[in-house]
Each structure stands twice: as C-alpha cells, then as structure tokens.
C-alpha cells in the first residue's frame, strides 16, 4: 500500500521532470552502505538469517525431534545423527533446530510486544510532556525498581499453569468463539510476560528522542504549516526515532532469548516435551560429564546466535548514528 504510493509518486515525478531529476541518497541508504562496510555486522546479519531459516525449515531438514529410540541412548555425534542423540534417544540436531524455533520466536515476539508498548508509551509521554510525562515516567521508574528477575519469575509462574489457561478459555467460550488455547499457549503467555517487562527501556529511549525532536525546528515548522498532530507524529517524529528503535530492537532480541534460556534452565520457561535452547542446555548440563555434546551443541547454537545479534546491533548503531560511534 505504502510502496504503491511511493511508486506512483516516483512515476509522476519522472513524467514531470523527465530529463534531469537527480536521485537523492536518503539517510537510510547511507546507513545501509555504512553497515555493509562493517564486516563483523554483515557476518552477524548473515548468521542470523541462516540460523532463522534453518530453524524455520526445521521440519524439512531434520527428523522428528520427539521420536524416541531407546536403542540410541545418548549416542555420540555420527553420520546418522550429526549432533548425537539425547538420553531418550531423540535426535539432538532436530531438537536444537526445533528448540531454536521457540527460542527465536520468544526473542522476536517478546521484543515485538516490548516494541509496541514502548514506542506508543514513549511517544505519548514525550509528545505531550508536562504532567502526563511526569506521571507516565514515574510509573516506568517504579516498575524498573522492582527486582526484575523475581518479577519475571512471578509472571511466568502465574501464566505458566493450566488453571490460568482454563480461566482464559472460559472467557473465550463465553464470547462465543469456537477455539480454545492449548498447552502451547503457555509459551505465548510467557513471551508476553517478558515483553511486558522489556518495554521499559524502549519507552525511555523513545520518550527521550521524541522530547528532543519536539524542540527541533522542522517539527515547529510542520506545526506552523498547520499539519495535524497525528501526521506530525507519524511523518516527522517516528521516522526520525526509527534509528535508535531499530538498534535497540536488535539488541533486545538476544537479551530476551538469554532471559528465556535462563528461565527454561530453571524449569520455569518452556515445558517438556517442547524444547528451547535453554531447556536443552539445562538437560545437557545434568549429564555434561558423561555426554558433553548434549551441552556443547545447544550451547554453541545459543552463543553464536546471541553474538551475531549483538554484532548486527552494534553495526546498526554505528551505521545509523555515525556521530555516536566516533568516540
């Protein structure tokens, strides 16, 4: 829809000034070129894409992660089972890929939740300022002050049980809808719970950016032109805060994944037979002395992915804000 508009405009432009309208180079394109020059972040980006694709197509590439063959009790890596098998004879390669699905999904969905809440909250707070801002930011401060880990553990304990799910299903049925939430829904609730905590920093970043943008002349010029506030926010403010938002998003995904791994390691996150990298690392750690590959492969998968995300995020920060990187 948006692209269609842009194409139409470009065509209208070309027909009006056919001979010489020089194409400009947008800040986004400049940033893209700077990003491509940063080898580490390009490698990071490529690895993130590969890992995501592998996990997404795990069903095609790998065997069933839950089929047990007790004859293969904890067999070492081999041609048939690249990463070996676990103590129930399940293929570890498949479990790592399927676990990666959940880990990545938790990272991305929770970050998306954080992004939506944080951007809306921060924009409102920064744009309106005054008492609205004061109250909204004090709420953030208060939530910030809660012991973060305990807070997430409480949330996951609350959400991750059948009773809560039954109650929510009851509400859904009452409204006449014909579906109910299965046990997988616990994971979705967990994403939401983590996201609901991760939005705080996003809200602060966006609020700070919006506040400094409010004082910029081009925002005042837009106001002086008589442009509506919604349009000022969406056309003039958000595109200019997008840079920091993108950077923070890429850096939030790995930190959420780490949090999920930590919760799953403690047994509070993803529940068996579903796997995530955290669950696999937890299981592997129990038998690391006899069967080290059970810890090594999931551990490697998690660390390589986290590293890649962080390199990509750092590269994006340097590319989107070249001034900040020269220190």
């Amino acid at each position, binding site marked *: 829809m948006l692209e269609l508009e842009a194409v*139409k*405009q470009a065509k*209208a*432009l070309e*027909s*009006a*000034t056919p*001979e*010489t*309208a*020089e*194409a*400009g*180079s*947008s*800040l*986004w394109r400049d940033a893209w070129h700077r990003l491509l020059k940063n080898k580490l972040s390009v490698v990071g980006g490529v690895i993130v894409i590969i890992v995501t694709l592998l996990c997404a197509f795990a069903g095609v590439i790998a065997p069933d992660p839950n089929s047990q063959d007790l004859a293969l009790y904890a067999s070492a890596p081999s041609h048939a089972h690249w990463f070996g098998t676990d103590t129930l004879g399940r293929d570890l390669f498949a479990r790592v890929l399927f676990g990666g699905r959940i880990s990545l999904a938790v990272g991305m969905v929770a970050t998306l939740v954080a992004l939506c809440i944080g951007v809306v909250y921060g924009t409102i707070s920064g744009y309106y300022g005054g*008492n609205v801002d*004061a*109250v909204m930011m004090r709420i953030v401060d208060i939530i910030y002050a809660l012991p973060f880990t305990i807070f997430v553990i409480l949330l996951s304990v609350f959400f991750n049980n059948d009773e809560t799910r039954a109650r929510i299903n009851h509400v859904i049925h009452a409204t006449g809808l014909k579906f109910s939430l299965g046990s997988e829904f616990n994971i979705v609730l967990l994403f939401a719970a983590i996201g609901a905590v991760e939005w705080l920093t996003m809200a602060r970043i966006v609020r700070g950016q919006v506040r400094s943008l409010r004082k*910029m*002349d*081009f925002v*005042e*010029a*837009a*106001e*002086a*032109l*008589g*442009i*509506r506030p919604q349009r000022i926010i969406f*056309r*003039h403010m958000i*595109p*200019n805060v997008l840079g920091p938002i993108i950077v923070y998003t890429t850096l939030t995904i790995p930190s959420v994944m780490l949090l999920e791994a930590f919760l799953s390691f403690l047994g509070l996150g993803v529940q068996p037979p579903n796997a995530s990298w955290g669950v696999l690392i937890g299981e592997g750690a129990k038998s690391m002395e006899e069967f080290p590959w059970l810890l090594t492969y999931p551990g490697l998968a998690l660390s390589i992915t986290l590293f890649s995300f962080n390199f990509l995020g750092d590269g994006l920060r340097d590319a989107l804000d070249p001034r900040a990187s020269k220190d």
Partner: protein
Amino acid sequence: MPTADAFLEVTDLKTHFPIEKGFLVKKRVGTVKAVDGIDLTLAQGEVLGLVGESGCGKSTLGRTILQLIPPTEGTVVLAGRNLAGLRGGDLRRARADFQMIFQDPYASLNPRMTVYDTLAEAISTHKNIPRGEMPRRVSELLSRVGLSPRFIRKYPHEFSGGQRQRIAIARALAVEPKLIIADEPVSALDVSIQAQIINLLIKLTREMGLTMIFISHDLSVVKHISDRIAVMYLGRIVEIGPSVEVFEKPLHPYTKALVSAVPIPDPARERHRKRIILSGDPPSPVNPPMGCTFHPRCPYMIEECRAAYPPFVDYTPGRRATCIRLHEINPPA
C-alpha cells in the same frame, strides 16, 4: 495606534512563562516576561525589521504572533481576524495566511524527507491538488527561490546551508501566505551567502506583496531589507521608525549604542566612529529593573527613570521611542 490600512495589528501582546517548581502540584516561583506589552501595526506589503540583543524576546514575539506560543494577553489581528482567539482546527486552517522562516536551515528541514516530499506536504496541507499536478507545482516553487527542479528528489543533507534556506523559504511560500516572519534567516549562513538570501527575500516580498517581520540581531542586515525598524529591549519595543532615519539618527539611548556598534565599510570614517559602550549585561527578564528597564545601563539616566516605565514619546511623525528625555537628548537639528 490603529490605522485604516493596518494589515497586521498587534495590541498589548504579552507572553509570560511561569517558572514552576514541584512535582504534579506546581508552585509558581517566578515569571519570565519574554514579551511584555507589544503594540505593532504593519501595513500590507511592509517589511518591519525587529532588532535587539539575544534574549530580548524578539524570537518569542515572532512565535507568539504566529500562535506557535500562546499569548498570555493581548490580540493579534491579521486582515481583520484575531488570531489569538483561534484554537485547534480553526487555527490550523488559518495558518495558510502566516508562515515562518527559521534561523537554522540545518534543523528546520526534516532529514528523512526529500525536497519534493517536504514541499508537496506543505502545498497539500491547505489545498487539494491533483496528484499529477504536484510535481509541476513543486518545480515552480523551487524555481521561484532560485533552485533547479532537478534537485527535487534530493535530501536536505545533500544541500549547502544557503540552498537549504532557499528550500525552507519555498516551504513557507508553498501555502501562499500573506505574512511571513523570518527569525534570523541569515545569521546561520556564511556572510557570502547572506546577501543572496536577503536579496531573494526582498525580491519575493515585492513580487508577492508579502508583509514581513524580519528578526535579526544584526542592524546592517536589517537596514537593507526593512521599511521600518523596531528595536526591542527586554520584551518591549523601545524605538520604532523608518529604517533609514533610525539608522541615521537613532533616538533612544539603547538604539544609539546599537547603531554605534555597526562598523562602517569606509576605513576613513570607520577610524573616527564613536562607539558607545554599554556597561553591564542585559538584566534578567525574571526580575527586570524598576521603572525604565534600560536605566541601569543608560548613560543619560536621571532619578526619574527609576519611577515608572516611560510611555512612547512621538518625535517626528512615524518616529517614536520610550524615553522621558527623548527631546532633551535629541535636540532638533
């Protein structure tokens, strides 16, 4: 002083900013009187130069006239309509009549929008233009400010300061305003570029019959463009009169000091230029001096100056200043 041909009439305009302390329950601990009782009348097509030192409230006055800052008191009547009473959608629609040109062309253009997007947005804010016609309109605007239409798809960071200011001027003209307030439009530019932009503004105001308030702290810049000059000190106008006369024979002690500080581009005369050095800094607008706010720095100060703020005294037709000793210190030649 309402006149028949008043196009813009500002009456007793005040912009006070409260200084507040406290969380949620705010306590007012003081007031910055940035603009403190301004009366101004401009005829259609007139260019008024507004000068004063940094912090005297000239930018705040400009923004208050344009309703970017709500006035505390007073009226701004443009072509018979009081802008100070307008709110929300009414105010947004009225904005087609008055526009602003900003000081810093590096900050006044959205860095994520092409020249085309910026100007097309401005044009379409107050008019419905068919999509096919828009490129032609934008090209016209660019030509009008002396830029080639082939720059249409470029971004602000690909232009020089002077070119950016031209784009900003084009944006202000896009809505076909009647009044333009230019807030130090050249002070962020190289001296070599300043003259070009000033000449462009002079040309545009003549061609389009624009009324303009040109704000600057640089008297020599204002002299070229203005029909009249108003001098501001601490939120008030202290002297107003035809541009040439104010320059040739400043009346108010403050104007005298300002004019004496302008270098003369003639070495022989420059050597004999007498400079009036004012002592001290401009006082804080939070706590202005009693009586005439200029008295602590005034070389002509007498005891009466402490008593009350002086009213405007007419000197010759069209020339006025707020000084109780106006005639005494400016004997007729």
